[in-house]
């Protein structure tokens, strides 16, 4: 394969944003800029689907590897994919066009700059998921802060400055320790190439500290309790498209990082710290679900529910069982679709009423029937109803955890019930009940674009709920290989 398809995936949104940069930012030009951005991201999506078709899911090695000299004698620009990363890449390329479609009502000023930020963000996110060198990974991981900071800060709500700063500094603080760890790994082993590191392994005596350094970065980004406080602020203040990107893709970088780096590079340390992860995850699931129950603000509620869902993900990853890890990956993909849809649903009513408070609404089922149906679907998917993709993920994770630790599994299952409680209660208060607020009557049902966006999110949610095989087939071999390697490392090193 000579055509560098992965680099093309990374570069294409960049090229699109350069085109946009040279276009004029005026009100007449609005639709042109939007179509340019949309075109770029759709082409990127098709390219990633093409990649999925070419991808051979029966072998566990990395595929489509590109390896170029970069920082001579130190780091090579190395990218490639395996069964795990391909799904995240497709999630990214799938969500981005929907974000671009959704800007119609939300972004009033500087549309062009917003689209540039989204496209640049997309290429950094794809970079994160296909980097096969720790340094390249770090570069993309951190670079994503710049566009997200601007998205929250320029187009966000009233407390946007506070939220943008909190987001940026929190994540940066978490990540600098990872940089120290990456450089240390280089001096310990002589390379930062992930594939080589998988083979070489890292000396046992360093593993715990290095694991903690990576953990500090991923825990903030996931976010795990108690490092999650930036997330509700960032979500609430970000514009809809920003929240969608944040919830659907940015949070997944850390889950992906846990699987790829924490498990892959530091198996002994992962084994050692599993109780810590279990504890934090269980606290996250129960605690943030309870907090979510108390929220008045719809976006904040969904933000806290994201923390709880990511708690399931970290739980599943560290079971180191086939079901657990597969469940985590499917949970991440599903959460990417569902949380994106939920934020868009909130965005739909916010654009009409300019309020995110739950008690503003009530009884909108009679005014917006289409909206209510779709919102219902995503609510049910979020609480993991069988037949939606949410169910597959949670079920597999809990299966993995039950095999590993009964008590943790029981507590986590209790979290599922709490999840159902806050999501259904939210739905009940917003959609059902009496129509008290007269202002609501002016609201119109979904327009074509909104309908298109929500439907295109609903289809995969339902499809993978009934038929998760395409997902499982893609990741199975890679996950299996990861677990074998992990167990082998445990045996030989200890």
């Amino acid at each position: 394969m000579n055509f560098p398809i992965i680099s093309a995936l990374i570069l294409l949104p960049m090229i699109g944003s350069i085109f946009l940069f040279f276009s004029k930012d005026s009100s007449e030009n609005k639709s042109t800029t939007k179509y340019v951005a949309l075109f770029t991201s759709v082409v990127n999506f098709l390219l990633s689907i093409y990649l999925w078709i070419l991808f051979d899911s029966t072998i566990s090695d990395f595929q489509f590897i590109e390896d170029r000299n970069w920082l001579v004698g130190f780091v090579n620009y190395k990218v490639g994919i395996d069964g795990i990363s391909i799904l995240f890449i497709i999630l990214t390329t799938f969500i981005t066009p929907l974000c671009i479609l959704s800007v119609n009502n939300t972004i009033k000023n500087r549309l062009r700059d917003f689209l540039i930020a989204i496209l640049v963000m997309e290429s950094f996110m794809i970079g994160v998921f296909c980097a096969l060198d720790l340094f390249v990974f770090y570069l993309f991981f951190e670079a994503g802060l710049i566009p997200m900071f601007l998205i929250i800060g320029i187009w966000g709500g009233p407390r946007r400055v506070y939220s943008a700063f909190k987001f940026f500094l929190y994540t940066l603080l978490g990540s600098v320790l990872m940089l120290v760890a990456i450089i240390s790994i280089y001096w310990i082993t002589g390379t930062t190439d992930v594939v080589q590191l998988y083979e070489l392994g890292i000396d046992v005596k360093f593993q715990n500290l290095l694991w903690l350094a990576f953990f500090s970065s991923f825990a903030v980004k996931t976010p795990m309790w108690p490092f999650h406080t930036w997330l509700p602020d960032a979500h609430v203040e970000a514009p809809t498209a920003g929240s969608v990107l944040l919830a659907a893709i940015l949070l997944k970088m850390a889950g992906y990082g846990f699987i790829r780096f924490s498990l892959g590079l530091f198996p002994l340390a992962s084994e050692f710290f599993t109780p810590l992860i279990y504890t934090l995850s269980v606290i996250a699931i129960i605690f943030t679900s309870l907090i979510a129950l108390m929220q008045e603000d719809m976006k904040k509620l969904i933000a806290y529910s994201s923390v709880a869902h990511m708690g399931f993900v970290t739980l599943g990853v560290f079971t180191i069982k086939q079901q657990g890890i597969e469940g985590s990956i499917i949970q991440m993909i599903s959460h990417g679709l569902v949380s994106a849809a939920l934020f868009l649903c909130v965005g739909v009513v916010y654009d009409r009423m300019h309020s995110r408070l739950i008690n503003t609404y009530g009884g909108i089922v009679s005014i917006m029937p289409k909206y209510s149906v779709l919102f219902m679907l995503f609510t049910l998917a979020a609480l993991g109803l069988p037949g939606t993709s949410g169910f597959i993920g949670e079920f597999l994770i809990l299966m993995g955890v039950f095999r590993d630790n009964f008590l943790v599994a029981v507590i986590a299952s209790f979290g599922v019930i709490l999840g159902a409680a806050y999501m259904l209660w939210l739905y009940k208060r917003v959609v059902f009940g009496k129509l008290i607020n007269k202002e609501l009557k002016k609201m119109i049902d979904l327009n074509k674009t909104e309908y298109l966006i929500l439907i295109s999110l609903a289809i995969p949610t339902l499809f993978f709920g009934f038929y998760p095989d395409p997902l499982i087939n893609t990741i199975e071999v890679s996950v299996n290989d990861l677990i074998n390697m992990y167990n082998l490392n445990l045996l030989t090193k200890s």
Partner: protein
Amino acid sequence: MDNLHLVLPEIFLSLSIMFLLILGVFKKNSFYLIHNISLIVLLITAVITFNETTSINKELLFNQSVIIDPLSSLMKIVTLLAAFTVLTVSTNYLKIFNIFKIEYSVLILSSVLGMMIMISANDLIVFYMGLELQSLALYVLATFNRENLKSSEAGLKYFVLSALSSGLLLYGCSLIYGFSGSTNFEVISTQLNSNEYALTFGIVFILVGLAFKISAVPFHMWAPDVYEGSPTTVTLFFTIVPKIAALTVFIRFLYVPFLNLVDQWQMIIIFLSIASMLLGAIAAIGQTNIKRIIAYSSIGHIGYALAGLSTGSNDGIQSSIVYIIIYIIMNLGFFSCLLMLKRNNEYYESLDDLSGLSKNHPLLSLSLLIILFSLAGIPPLAGFFAKFYIFKSVIEQSMYFLAIIGLLSTVVAAFYYLRIIKIIYFDNEKEKFDNDHNSWLKFSLALSTILILFYFIFPSKIIEVVSRINII
């Protein structure tokens, strides 16, 4: 003397300075002429330096008191080019303040000459001569806007504190001479050994003097005031050009005469480095004047460069040099932006004046955005790579404490860079600034922004150049 051609750049520069002085005396209103000739002189000197000295591995001249090696030739070229850029962007500013005089160019040329001598010094006396030549020119430059009270104050402050530090330096030199019996760096290096405790005093005095010149904490107090008071173009000169020479001298002192005393000076340098990084990050938070912020930011950046020096390895030296070069490019870009904040012949330098800049001047703000994120060290911009090389060499020596403190202070420092970005991008707009900028100014801004933004495509080019420098 068959190798006199190696000092041809210095000879050419000093002759040109004399010529320009005479020209200035005999020809009235020759500001432009002298300014332009100075530019050409700087370029020619850079070319001569490049031609004559880049291929030299190591040559000693004048009874071994002057050294020509890859370090000196690279740093001289960087100094000359930096001075060239400063001169090109100065014209508009000087004209508006009515201080566009022949002395400006001549003083800059003389201080550059002093720096070149410092860079090539292999002897305490030659080093001190170069240092004084550049300092005297800088004192005058600081007060160049003599109608302005702050500028005069800045010059006076700089003069007094700098004279004090020169005194300390001289005292240190005399102690070293006393113990080693020579002023030549290499002789000193063979004569000194760490058994003499009194010798440590000599080293401390010399390091204190140098720390003053490079404005490392705790000898930084002059920097914010001088940077704020001096005319902006002079501040630009202060923040970049003398740092190159001072860093080179630092490298020379630490790694030639004091090489065997690593244990004695390493702790001092680590302390200077940590203190500078932390203070540079924390003290800038409360500032409202952009020039003061840049002063603290440059203190912080010097801290990172010193962290590279403290490692005692070739890698560390090279990373410091890369750091200082990237720092120069970023500062050049930042000051070019600052020099564009002009409305009705008045320059603005308070943070509030930047408010909402992005709505009226999208391109200028975008450049500032890139430069500020780069100063904060966020990938994939050049500033990140600069910091990365430093920490790579620091961690190689297992100095984890220094690395972690350094990286944590980048997070603190990120706060005030973000604050400037916040003011530019998130706040409400104010009146427009003028758009009629000198094309050199635009060029230097565009060039530095592009270099910073696209550094990641060819990150090893600069390393290739620097890797020829092997001091140890």
